[in-house]
């Protein structure tokens, strides 16, 4: 039987200050890591989950984003007539769209931020099957009406239902809020295609065409057909891939965050190690005595590992408590491809919390390993002779 857990707990509570300081250090590291995981998780979710697997997004060749792509209306009819397009109520599932960017004032940022405006026909809305209107109604044809994504509604000034937004040639009534399940569309403003075309004087030149293929084979065929049509000078990207590429703009943030977390983690490991070395040194005679009583080197090792683990678990708990207020907090990140901002939530899922606690345990175990091994290996005689 190993030494009782109460022995470890009491040893930790006896030196309260050291224990708390070390745990706090570990806690801060865990908090930073959890913050980063939550941020990365929210970003990934916002960008990756966007798109339907059978959707082809057709843009001008070599366009990095819809914003810089141009397609004229003739090309749209040519695409509409290609084989392999799924039908809905006798109509091909094709949505020609215009995407532009405007600057809107934001809460706590008077300079505002860039927001994507998407003009699309009713079919475009029907093709985005996972989104739902959570407030108000859809815009009506011929009216200066918009529906805003839920991130926009929350984070921008005068962007709620009943409010008026000013862009283009005048005011627009906000008539609805859409929830696209935390995808990129939650950070867009949607308006009728023709309304936007008139307002921005873009009757002939659109941005992109979204097409739904009837099956994966047709999707491939459509993609090839678009690419092969030399006159059009267009290319089709799978919608899913398109948004996946946009995620790359979050890479530097992720990298920096993880870099900081790793450095802090190494620091915390050393802090735990330092604390445990001090504990082992202070209790040398105690260790010698336990060995004389018949406890093996292994049980001494175990005792100090457990102590270090308990210490770091306390740290993990502190870390989780520190980031708890961040849960559900919204923020945004600029995207250098679409020149606009994508909103996302900090989400503290149970998995992320578990990761934080697991991370703390690893720091504790790594930090405790050398001191505990030293304690277990020291000869009984030299341990007893220490004062």
């Amino acid at each position, binding site marked *: 039987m190993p030494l009782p857990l109460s022995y470890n707990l009491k040893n930790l509570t006896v030196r309260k200050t050291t224990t708390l300081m070390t745990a706090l250090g570990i806690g801060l590291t865990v908090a930073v890591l959890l913050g980063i995981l939550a941020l990365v998780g929210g970003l990934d979710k916002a960008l990756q989950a966007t798109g339907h697997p059978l959707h082809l997004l057709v843009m001008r060749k070599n366009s990095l984003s819809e914003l810089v792509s141009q397609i004229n209306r003739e090309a749209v009819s040519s695409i509409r007539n290609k084989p392999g397009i799924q039908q809905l109520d006798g109509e091909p599932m094709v949505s020609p769209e215009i995407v532009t960017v405007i600057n809107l004032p934001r809460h706590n940022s008077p300079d505002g931020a860039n927001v994507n405006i998407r003009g699309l026909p009713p079919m475009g809305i029907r093709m985005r099957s996972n989104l739902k209107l959570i407030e108000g109604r859809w815009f009506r044809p011929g009216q200066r009406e918009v529906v805003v994504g839920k991130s926009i509604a929350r984070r921008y000034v005068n962007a709620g239902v009943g409010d008026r937004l000013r862009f283009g040639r005048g005011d627009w009534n906000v008539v609805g809020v859409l929830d696209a399940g935390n995808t990129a569309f939650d950070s867009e403003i949607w308006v009728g295609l023709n309304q936007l075309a008139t307002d921005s004087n873009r009757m002939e030149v659109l941005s992109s065409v979204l097409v739904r293929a009837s099956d994966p084979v047709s999707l491939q065929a459509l993609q090839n057909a678009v690419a092969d049509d030399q006159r059009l000078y267009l290319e089709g990207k799978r919608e899913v891939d398109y948004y996946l590429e946009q995620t790359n703009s979050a890479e530097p943030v992720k990298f920096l965050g993880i870099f900081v977390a790793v450095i802090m983690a190494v620091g915390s490991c050393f802090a735990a190690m330092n604390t445990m070395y001090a504990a082992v040194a202070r209790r040398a005679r105690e260790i*010698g005595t336990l*060995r*004389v*009583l018949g406890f093996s080197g292994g049980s001494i090792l175990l005792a100090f590992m457990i102590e270090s683990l308990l210490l770091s678990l306390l740290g993990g708990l502190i870390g989780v408590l520190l980031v708890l207020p961040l849960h559900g907090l919204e923020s945004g990140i600029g995207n250098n491809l679409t020149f606009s901002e994508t909103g996302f939530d900090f989400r503290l899922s149970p998995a992320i919390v578990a990761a934080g606690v697991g991370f703390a345990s690893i720091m504790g175990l790594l930090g405790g390993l050398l001191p505990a091994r030293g304690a277990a290996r020291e000869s009984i*005689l030299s341990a007893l002779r220490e004062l």
Partner: protein
Amino acid sequence: MVNDLVVEATDLHKEFQRDAFQVIALQDVHLTVQKGEFVAFMGPSGSGKSSLLYIIAAIDRPTRGRVKVLGRDLLQLKERAMADWRNENIGFIFQTFNLIPVLTARENVELPLLLTHLSRQERAEHAATALGLVGLSDRMDHYPRQLSGGQEQRVAIARAIVSDPSIILADEPTGDLDAQSAQEILTILSRLNRDHGKTILMVTHDPHAARHASKIRYLEKGQLLPEGAPQPE
């Protein structure tokens, strides 16, 4: 009579390597101790008294020689087996008590029993009995810092006898105590020897303490003087 030999050490040598020097702690030591004896070891500082005790307790190994305790050849035991053997057969008492400060008297005494198959209930009973034997039934839930030096040493004795070992080894058990507490400790040790048949080997600097033993052996410069030799100056 041969079966009653508790300690049989032949030609014991112990050397320590200290930096470039060889320190000889024990040389040519022959020692036999009968069951039920109470032997006091005396000698100047550095004469090897503790070293001898550690070897008999299976805490340390001799550099050369043979040592049999309770019929068991200690040199045959591996590290882990030595630990188990100590737990079962040896009660060790230190000059500095060496109680675990974060544990109560009862928990300290129970420690050796954690390595046995006794149930929680049985462990508690054994610990209570041992503490009763040293007269500390009313101090079971006290922490070491709440006890006097003499009381701490009595808890340490309770811890040494709780698993009912046949041998008690004590390294200057009264060295840190005032005269009265020392007397209490010696009385307890004598009683353990006389009433409970424990074989006791005790190192001491104090001639008064040594008088409680049935036999006094002297060490000098690592050598055990012959039995009955006159006390060296």
